[in-house]
């Protein structure tokens, strides 16, 4: 039980205007489809300060990752060069609370696809 830290904040999920702006900047306002992009994230974060995620979109030129419930939603943009053997990458990110992580891939033909995954960030439980 993670008590004793009254300063801990648990932000509710909220869609941030800044996230909408960031998406528009990346897609130029184009429609986003589904499929062809996999975002892998844990059901529950072991630690909200370091949540492992993986994005994979065969044939993409770039993938944008956003944390929709963070105070600032930007996480990273992966730009794949000619020697990328796969358009995939893994990293570790900070999540300020339970929220949706969103990935948007720009495909070689200029189209966009989107995927999202909810990650629960918990104060903690007590083991059995």
């Amino acid at each position, binding site marked *: *039980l993670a*008590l004793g830290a009254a300063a801990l904040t*648990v932000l509710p999920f909220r869609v941030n205007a800044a996230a909408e702006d960031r998406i528009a900047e990346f897609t130029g306002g184009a429609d986003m489809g589904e499929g062809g992009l996999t975002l892998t994230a844990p*059901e529950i974060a*072991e630690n909200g300060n370091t949540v492992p995620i993986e994005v994979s979109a065969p044939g993409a030129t770039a993938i944008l990752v956003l944390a929709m419930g963070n105070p600032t939603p930007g996480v990273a943009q992966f730009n794949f060069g000619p020697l990328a053997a796969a358009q995939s990458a893994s990293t570790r990110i900070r999540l300020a609370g339970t929220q949706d992580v969103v990935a948007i891939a720009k495909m070689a033909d200029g189209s966009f696809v989107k995927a999202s995954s909810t990650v629960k960030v*918990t104060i903690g*439980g*007590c*083991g*059995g």
Partner: protein
Amino acid sequence: GNWSRLAAQQALTQDQLLEFDTFGNLTLIHITDIHAQLMPIYFREPEVNLGIGAAKGQMPHVTGADFRRFYGIEDGSPSAYALTYNDFSSLARAYGRVGGMDRVATVVNAIRADRPDALLLDGGDTWHGSYTCFHTEGQDVVNVMNALKPDAMTFHWEFTLGTDRVTELVESLPFASLGQNIFDAEWDEPSELFKPYKFFERGGVKVAVIGQAFPYMPIANPGWMFPEFSFGIREENMQAMVDEVRAEGAEVVVVLSHNGFDVDKKMAGRVTGIDVILSGHTHDALPEPVLVEQTYVIASGSNGKFVSRVDLDIRDGRMMGLKHKLIPIFSDVIAPDPQVTALINAQREPHIDQLREVIGRTADDALLYRRGNFNGTWDDLICDALISERDADIAMSPGVRWGPSILPGQEITREDIWNVTSMSYGAAYRTEMTGEFLHVVLEDVGDNLFNPDPYYQQGGDMVRVGGLGYRIDVTKPQGERISDMTLLKTGEKIDPAKNYVVAGWASVNEGTEGPQIWDVVENHIRKLGTVNVTPNTSVEVVGA
């Protein structure tokens, strides 16, 4: 009347408990969650164990008379005493204590006499939970368990000994330490210390045992004590391991798991190719396996109270049949193994005066127990101790599932107090929380228990509270379950904006300060002398 009926049932014999028609060609022996209980104890099974969503009304979420009806268990019978909570105090007087690793050794030896190459598998939560375990950092339990010659083990509370100590002990073990989901946190690669699986040749059969450690270790326990490791369910890797061992010729695949029962059921339905899951963590004791698709899930209780014997018939690389018995360890019926008794005594001897010191006693109608989804009487007593000794408005105590029971009119020793409080992060903190934050805490822990998706159920029972009443609707989503929070000492509604003084223990945060909880409880019991128990009516549960 009642007494003569019970007296008659005391005619229970060791042979009856061990009776088993040997079946097939392979025997598994499963023990789990002993929580360092080397000695016989009393352990009351839960009265409240709610299943949510698809698990509602399904095993193990059935208790008391419904449980007895489901399995055809007679009221007042040995099985009723071992598996359900009703009439616990009187049945405990009739049937005596349960467990004791010297009795477990006798059972293991008897099974091995029948099937010499039986596999003994320990599901973890072994090196935690007693005075001597704390003071020897798990060495006492390791010494005793090694004498039973296990073949493999997986892990949970062991990690709360810290990375250095858990590494040292694991490296010393003369058997396999397994966990396909234990990864090196820095590079996200399988841990070198723990192997995902081990092959055994037994009964002419190639057996693969895959380990599954507790998936939510850094959430339910202090991650700062073992930052080098990462866990998770890692279902895809489990499937990859099953496929790998099958490709290498495994004729039967056994998962030694510390997932908890509902997580194991979900995993059994999603990962193909597992024959048997030996389930741990949620401390359920079920007299029959639960079949999910093609996988049998077996729950073997806790605190040394049970041993499961599972006989399998493996032919042509397939499991053709299974026979199972959950053997209750009635410690007055099963003769202790003298060598293991001597070994246990040797572990206890340096601490014996500390262990035996009597701190107080229970009143003639006061039963102390813990297990159950909500407050138990042990937790109520601990919360009272926190409020009184730390001068707080509200107390919080973790919803752990371990901790033996104390009968009415029984002496409470220092050992008994440590059995329900011992841990490596036992500081009893005192802090201020707003009413809003208290609500967030209850909602958060409530979702860890009552989320309808088992993969989101990551730990223990509901946090226990003292000085605070609330209503919980277990069917609602997070944020809407908890209402009517009341400060009991004034009867006022909790004000979201107001600060309350909260005392608690078992914080997962590094640097938590305060006296150790066992000292807080000891001081409180010493002052009380005799412990009385008043029924806790301050938690109202709806939707069950």
